[in-house]
């Protein structure tokens, strides 16, 4: 089984990174001051720090860091579950078209000049609808073979990408087009208590759902027919996994745009650390994904004078990292 040291690391790492992201930034705050501000919310200690510092830490950095954690954790655990279900290490969370559909939904909301809340709701709804469409398309003879799911996902994603391009084409190039483009590049700067309230429930619910199914994902990864012979109701299980990952991914995309590569790369890192067993891999992916996105967002906030879009960083760091992993493992899944 997994060493206690690894378990401790998996719990402490995201929390330490979370804490660090509260005092690191363009406006430096002393770590001790952050600790006192946090404690001051619960304990009667003298409030001897400037009001503006408290606002930065609690109103700006904390929601953003929490969102980064949950989005990173959610995307990573979804990717791990999908890679198990599709028995394929190249699968990511957007395989069934959720990202493309959510992106189009967000573009529509921006075209219609909706506010941020409406945008998030529309993007979330489109994401769910896109995956629903994929699932219906993949259904043959009362079952959904994995290959049909993948192919239907490609079709649906291509369709929504085309719609998205159409939306961009008709968008006002002075105001709407840049808004759509920036939104699609991904960012956490829309993080607020409101967006946390919207995004966290689906992400938490989906993650708990996936954690509950983690042994069954092991069995499912032996292939549909074998899993059925082992007593697994594969259609229900696959449906459950799809619902959970879609809730997570649609919620993530709807609040922070398209953040690629997390769902693809993090499960591989997890497998290197704790092995392929989904009982350990799913919790590990949560932890590593949370840490990774916090770290990425830290770079996004601080590396240049203006913020760097998340999608650019996750790909710029994720792709070479994945290349390194591939070379190291030579394509085996360990």
């Amino acid at each position: 089984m997994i060493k206690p040291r690894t378990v401790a690391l998996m719990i402490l790492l995201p929390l330490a990174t979370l804490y660090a992201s509260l005092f690191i930034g363009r406006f430096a705050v002393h770590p001790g001051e952050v600790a006192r501000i946090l404690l001051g919310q619960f304990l009667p200690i003298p409030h001897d720090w400037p009001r503006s510092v408290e606002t930065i830490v609690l109103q700006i950095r904390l929601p953003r860091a929490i969102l980064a954690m949950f989005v990173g954790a959610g995307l990573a655990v979804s990717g791990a579950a999908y890679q198990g279900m599709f028995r394929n290490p190249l699968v990511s969370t957007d395989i069934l078209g959720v990202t493309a559909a959510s992106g189009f939904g967000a573009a529509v909301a921006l075209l219609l000049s909706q506010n941020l809340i409406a945008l998030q709701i529309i993007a979330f709804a489109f994401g769910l609808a896109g995956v629903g469409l994929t699932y219906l398309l993949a259904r043959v003879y009362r079952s959904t073979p994995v290959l049909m799911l993948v192919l239907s996902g490609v079709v649906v994603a291509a369709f929504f990408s085309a719609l998205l391009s159409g939306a961009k084409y008709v968008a006002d190039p002075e105001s709407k087009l840049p808004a759509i483009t920036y939104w699609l590049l991904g960012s956490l700067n829309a993080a607020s208590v409101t967006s946390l309230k919207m995004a966290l429930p689906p992400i938490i619910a989906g993650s708990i759902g996936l954690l509950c199914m983690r042994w069954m994902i092991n069995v499912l990864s032996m292939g549909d027919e074998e899993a059925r012979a082992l007593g697994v109701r594969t259609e229900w299980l696959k449906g459950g996994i799809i619902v959970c990952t879609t809730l997570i991914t649609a919620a993530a995309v709807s609040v922070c745009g398209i953040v690629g590569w997390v769902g693809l790369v993090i499960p591989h890192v997890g497998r290197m650390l704790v092995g392929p067993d989904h009982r350990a891999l799913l919790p590990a992916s949560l932890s590593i994904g949370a840490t990774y996105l916090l770290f990425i967002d830290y770079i996004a906030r601080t590396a240049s004078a203006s913020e760097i879009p998340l999608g650019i960083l996750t790909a710029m760091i994720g792709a070479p990292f994945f290349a390194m992993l591939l070379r190291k493992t030579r394509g085996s899944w360990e």
Partner: protein
Amino acid sequence: MSAPLIEVRGAAFSFGEHAVFGGVDLDVYSGEVLTILGPNGCGKSTLLRCIGGALALARGTVHLENVDLSTLDARARARKIALLFQDHSPSFPYPVLDVVSMGRTPYLSAFGAPSAQDIAIAEEALEQVGMSHLKKRPYTDLSGGERQLVLLARTLAQQPAVILLDEPTAHLDFKNQVRSLRQIGALAERGVTMIMTTHDPNQAFLFPGRAALMRPGGSLTVGPPPKVITDESLSAAYGIGVSVLSVGRPDSGGELKFCTPWYNWPHKN
């Protein structure tokens, strides 16, 4: 004779328009190894999958211990019947013991995972096929023969009433064939009921039980192996000349029955 453990009645199956077999009646008795042989494409693997519930019959019924299997859900069925597939494609490098533990899945709740007791059952199953020394190894690293035995252990961990083996020696070399067959024989001696398809008629002579010779369309001849497997029946079923021979074994002096095709190339006659 006691009541059969499995009763197949009027079984028919077709892939779309293509009828694979029809009108199949078959009884399997507790404690026997029923070997189903027949030419490629006669439907023996399909019949096995229908009995195991992996495929649904177009017509007919399969009863196990007087329960109609089509009325059971996947979980209840998996507690009664275990299937060893011919074409297993490995996925992630799970440790051997985890793979065997998957046999406990029909006893778990939908969100459950194997308990310490389940793992103990899996260890025992692994012990029974003589693979305990490999329990921590990734099962993707094993040879084809070893992997087959690990998957056999997984079927044992299911603690089923009957184990269905689909061509358990396909793709194995001589030594690994014998190794697998020995394990199957050891299980047979302990009274495990098995139905096994094979492309090699010789294997039917090895086990305590009957042989079923299947012809395209599903007509079956079932009986003691020496009665079912004869020069005439095999020649007719496979459409080539076949002889059933008997030789003395050099080690024990016992008799070894086997059959061989005549290999008569046209130009050498």
